[in-house]
């Protein structure tokens, strides 16, 4: 996306992206989410998935926070026993992507225009019906936001976003831990 297409939303400047490596145990996600609820930190998006290391999951969180709050979020995450590593990658060179499905209202006369817009955004049509199309887009949050805005006049029937996943650029790995499962031996309460 060209720079001039970036969304100049002032709130976006408060948006910070964290990645946290956590032990893949029942209850870990519950603890992380409970922390955010309890401390009144506002989560924009959150996604969790397995990583290349067995037993370790990666949580990517986009949070509204200023610099001081970001430091406290980081410190509070470290207080959770199951959290292994936290990084605020907002200012780090990184790849951040999310996926969205947009079901847009389009009859056969409008299809061409929707398809043209999708092409501009490198979005794909994954389902087509007589009065609607479902579009899949992968990209940074600004790009997804922008496509949603240009499709909105056609009428958005259904919208689903995964939230961001992020990885730092370059060849460095996240710090490896000798004993990633630590000494915490039990199954905990399921999330």
């Amino acid at each position, binding site marked *: 996306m060209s720079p001039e297409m970036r969304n100049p939303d002032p709130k976006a400047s408060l948006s910070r992206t964290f990645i946290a490596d956590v032990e893949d145990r029942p209850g870990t996600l*519950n*603890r992380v989410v409970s922390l955010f609820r309890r401390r009144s930190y506002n989560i924009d998006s959150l996604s969790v998935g397995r990583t290349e290391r067995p037993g370790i999951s990666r949580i990517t969180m986009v949070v509204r926070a200023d610099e001081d709050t970001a430091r406290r979020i980081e*410190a509070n995450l*470290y207080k959770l*026993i199951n959290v*292994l590593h936290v990084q605020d990658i907002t200012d780090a060179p990184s790849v951040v992507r999310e996926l969205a499905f947009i079901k847009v209202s389009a009859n056969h006369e409008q299809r061409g225009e929707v398809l043209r817009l999708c092409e501009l955004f490198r979005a794909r049509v994954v389902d087509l019906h007589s009065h609607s199309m479902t579009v899949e887009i992968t990209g940074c949050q600004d790009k997804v936001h922008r496509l949603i805005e240009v499709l909105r006049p056609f009428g958005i029937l259904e919208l689903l976003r995964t939230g961001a996943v992020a990885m730092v650029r370059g060849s460095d790995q996240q710090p490896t831990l000798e004993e990633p499962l630590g*000494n915490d*031996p039990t199954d905990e309460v399921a999330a």
Partner: protein
Amino acid sequence: MQQAQTIAEGRPPSRGTLASAARRTGAQVIWEALTREGVDTVFGYPGGAIMPAYDALPGYAIRHILVRHEQGAAHMADGYARSSGRVGVAIATSGPGATNLVTGIATAMMDSSPIVCVTGQVSSAVIGSDAFQETDITGVTLPITKHNYLVTRAEDIAPTLRHAFFTARSGRPGPVLVDITKDAQQATIHPVWDVAPIRLPSNGSYCHPRWREFERAIDLINSAERPVILAGQGVLKSESSQLLVEFAEKTGIPVACTLLGLGGFPATHPLSLGMMGMHGEAWVNSSIQEADLLIALGMRFDDRVTGKLATFAVKAKKIHVEIDPSEINKNVKVDVALVSDVREALQEMLPRVQWCDRQAWADRIAALKGDSAVRDILSLPDNGRLFAAHVVNDLWRITEGKALVVTDVGQHQMWEAQYYKHDHPRGLITSGGLGTMGFALPAAIGARFARPDAEIWVIVGDGGFQMTACELSTCAQEGIKLNIAIINNGYLGMVRQWQEFFYSGRYVATPLKNPDFVKLAEAHGLAGFRAARREEVEDVVARAREASGTAVIDFRVEQEDSVYPMVPANADLHNMIRRPRPLIETADEP
């Protein structure tokens, strides 16, 4: 429920473990694991889901104190921990037994007290089916524990308890709950005892200050003209009181204490200012407001300490020594943060700080003391009426300041903080952060078992006492000696005071119709006394001390007295409400 990977099934028990040939039930493993952690006393209450554990208890050298309500068990474990620095242990059954612990766990969490709560849980096969006495206690206690565990297999009991004790006492201490299903207690296994040192998996290097930050702190300290040290509970937790005295004497910097920091610096030391905050001495708060440097040691700038944040010590640079990085810049923005144990930070700084002549600052503080119009109740001519401050101050005098005092929450707690001068660490146990009424009596029972030789005084209001008064039975059954001073004003006094100040004197739901506390004591087979005039105080205190068992004194104090001075909630720290009566103005010691 998904079975997570465990040490037992996930890793061979070869490195740093001791396999035991003998077979044990999970219940036996619980007590053996506690014994290995050095536990000699536990506080608990039996019930269905924890019965296998209770059945195995007689085989072990652990004293079990039967409480009358599980809240008491958690407070007792807390009092045991605070009075000794060791981990306190509470035991309860599932469901209501476990939920009754909640207030005690939250209290321990707010005041960073290391306790381990072991709860029974329904059998793993019926978890999630709303079985009889089933509660998702790990879910309930998730935000009020440092960590908690659900154990469904006997093999996991030993490593989990070991991890729980480590977690409770390491770093910033806190409560940990271990929920063990009934079938895990009943299963028979060959226990495996891991003896390798525990290392938490998270990135520990996050928690050490760099030399550059120490350099900045030392520069600020050596160049400050009006510095004040703010000593919190971290001084006590890290056992660095002596180091703090050396630090203060070497630099000549005066020391103010938080409520939970009292005793961390000797109250009668010439550099001691006293308690700060909402009911702190006026000159302490004024000194903080005029300071050009605050050195905060192991405290968290609670709202009861700072008053209105926007006007808190605006002229001062701030150095924050704190073991928990999430406390840095939480309430007050600081200039230098040293994420460290207080002891380590003081050891690092002590050789490099200098004595500076700050006579002007010393004179200013002396003037604040003289001019601060503290209308001290102790300077009241003795007209025979009994004020709570008289009781507390007489207790201080009679016990020579050496008693272990356990207070509840409310007016009497503040009077204790003001009029009992604590010169020694671990001389005061009180619920600070959570402000839990009903804390004092059970916490004192816990302290009794950790400190068998201490003279213990419970100072408690008539309201708070009745919240956990059932534990008088525990005192009687265990045959222990406590001295209980009920500061009885017939009101929920602190709420009444707020109603008087801020709600136009409408005393809604604060007057109390109390039982006869002397008869209540006697009904438990304990000694009971009453005093309503000041000249009677000495006599009843002497008789209570002489009583072989627990003694209760009902002090009938002035009913509508208030705690002064007072910073109203969210007001400027230096704008305090002063005692209005035209009394002699003095700040002298009595």
